[in-house]
């Protein structure tokens, strides 16, 4: 492999997460390396009568344990997303010691998030003042005074990005990414690009999402995206398995501190890895169907390799998008085979979603961090619930048990509804 360092190099100096498997990176990674599942019956809202009643929840007590009076006054601007991303970000910024950096205008924030859904209670309240034909009883609504201006802010996906800049005092570029399941990866990729181009020295990048409420959930139920056939909740997310039948909705957040290499060196902080390349693409095809030949996915993977200046021969591990839907896992397999050719079958490919479920905007960020942790601990996380091989999905999916194996360069795929694709190329830090 030969890479030319004409561009500024971007390294990782901190990371954090909160997921259904753990309140931080260490806990999540440990549970994932044991092949545990974070999926269970949903308790955050009443799922009676719904064809899917499972999901991956973050434990409330983990959030309650965090003593964070500064942030607490802002929780009203976001039902849960802010709490999740704040937890992940505190872990990451503490590790990277970003509070010691003097030039706050050189630190930016890049976040993938899709805002809160309106609550049924809010809609019912508004309904009282609506005649059904486009007319509002504004006098009554204002007099009743029960409809909060905060609802407006809660539905703006950019508010949590702003909150992070306020809470971490980051005056650099502030970027909100809204691209469904690709958002977390894109937030990291675009932050990496800004650092390469010298627009900032440090970027707090990541993603969060919390869709385990009625309005958030019901849309996915109606389009039949979620798994409805499972023997136990823990068995429902089964990427690449022949009996996969939809994804499992989860919540969570992941944060990564990206830093220009020389800046990190001048601070003398430990470096945990390097972002080597990134690309994004669009299928330009359909809203929920993936392109049958994986053309958009292929463009993103090839683009990331090219951006990293490496060839497909150099990739040791693929952290798959692997949602457990019939279409995604097949298309992703087709795309991997097209890019990696003969070698595809000898590269380990695994899906963290088999254990975590799908955290939507957080997925790309959480998976990027888990990939990095795997590289540093010579551990390849498994794809659990892999029981019935699908003849059309015939790669090495690291079935059920983590593998101890040294690896240096990985890619992490994220493909969203609407055909929005992102791929990150992540490497061990070589110094």
């Amino acid at each position, binding site marked *: 492999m030969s890479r030319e360092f004409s561009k500024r190099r971007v390294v990782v100096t901190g990371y954090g997460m909160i997921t259904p498997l753990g309140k931080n990176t260490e806990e999540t990674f440990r549970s994932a390396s044991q092949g545990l599942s974070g999926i269970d019956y949903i308790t955050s809202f009443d799922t009676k009568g719904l064809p899917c009643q499972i999901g991956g929840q973050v434990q409330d007590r983990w959030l309650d344990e965090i003593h964070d009076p500064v942030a607490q006054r802002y929780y009203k601007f976001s039902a849960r997303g802010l709490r999740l991303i704040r937890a992940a970000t505190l872990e990451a910024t503490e590790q990277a010691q970003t509070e010691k950096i003097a030039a706050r205008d050189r630190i930016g924030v890049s976040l993938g998030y899709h805002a809160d859904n309106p609550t049924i209670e809010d809609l019912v309240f508004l309904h009282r003042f609506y005649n059904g034909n486009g007319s509002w009883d504004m006098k009554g609504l204002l007099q009743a005074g029960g409809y909060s201006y905060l609802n407006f802010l809660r539905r703006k996906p950019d508010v949590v990005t702003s909150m992070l800049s306020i809470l971490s005092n980051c005056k650099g570029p502030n970027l909100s990414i809204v691209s469904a399941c690709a958002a977390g990866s894109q937030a990291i990729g675009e932050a990496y690009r800004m650092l390469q181009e010298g627009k900032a020295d440090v970027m707090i990048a990541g993603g969060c999402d919390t869709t385990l409420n009625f309005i958030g959930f019901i849309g996915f139920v109606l389009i039949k995206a979620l798994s409805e056939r499972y023997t136990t909740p823990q068995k429902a997310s089964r990427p690449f398995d022949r009996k996969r039948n939809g994804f499992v909705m989860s919540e969570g957040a992941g944060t990564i501190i990206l830093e220009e290499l020389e800046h990190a060196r001048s601070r003398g902080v430990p470096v945990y890895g390097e972002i080597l390349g990134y690309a994004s693409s669009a299928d330009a095809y359909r809203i*929920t*169907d993936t392109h049958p030949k994986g053309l958009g996915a292929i463009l993103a993977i090839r683009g990331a390799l090219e951006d990293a200046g490496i060839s497909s021969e150099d990739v040791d591990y693929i952290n798959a998008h692997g949602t457990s839907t019939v279409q995604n896992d097949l298309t992703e397999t087709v795309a991997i085979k097209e890019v990696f050719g003969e070698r595809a079958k000898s590269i380990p490919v695994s899906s963290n979603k088999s254990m975590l479920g799908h955290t939507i905007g957080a997925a790309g960020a959480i998976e990027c961090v888990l990939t990095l942790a795997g590289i540093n601990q010579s551990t390849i996380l498994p794809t659990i619930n892999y029981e019935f091989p699908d003849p059309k999905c015939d790669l090495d999916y690291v079935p059920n048990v983590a593998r101890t194996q040294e690896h240096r360069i990985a890619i992490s795929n994220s493909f969203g509804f609407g055909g929005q694709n992102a791929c990150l190329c992540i490497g061990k830090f070589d110094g």
Partner: protein
Amino acid sequence: MSQNFITEATVFEEVKKAIAETLNIDKDLIKPESSLIKDLGAESLDFLDINYRLEQAFGIKMARHFILEHIEEMFGEGSAIDANSQITDKAVSLLQFRMGENFPELRPGMDMDEVPALVTAQSLTSGVLDILDSLPEKCSACGNSEWQSENGLRIKCGSCGEYAAFTNGDDLIKAWLTKVQEEKKIF
């Protein structure tokens, strides 16, 4: 009971309307044998939209699951789709029995992915008619049997004014499978 209020021609007209509005195409392009996916360019999400429009028009509930899913559920895993994602011989003969012989694509060894393309304007029309034929003898609200048609699309009780309650599409498929299994013992 079979009903005589809504004709097949009316249902087909509504099916055409639903497809044309969903896909934003000219109604005249839609023939009974047109495959929604192959001939008219529908994607999977469009099926939900078309079903929703038909449900609104007739006051019915279309099936949410393909018949293959019902077969798997009723007769066990692997009964409709084998380990190679291919339709089993038994499921193929059952589908031929249900859909008629006009589908040359419908053959043993056919891939599961090819099944959605079998949905045509005519198969949707039959689906709607099956549901309409589940019209109960008596109104569930008042117990009288004085059904009347409203706009040629909805059936309501001439006595109390309630709309008829039909069996939903999934339950009808299950009932049909049970009956065929009893008669033919395919599985």
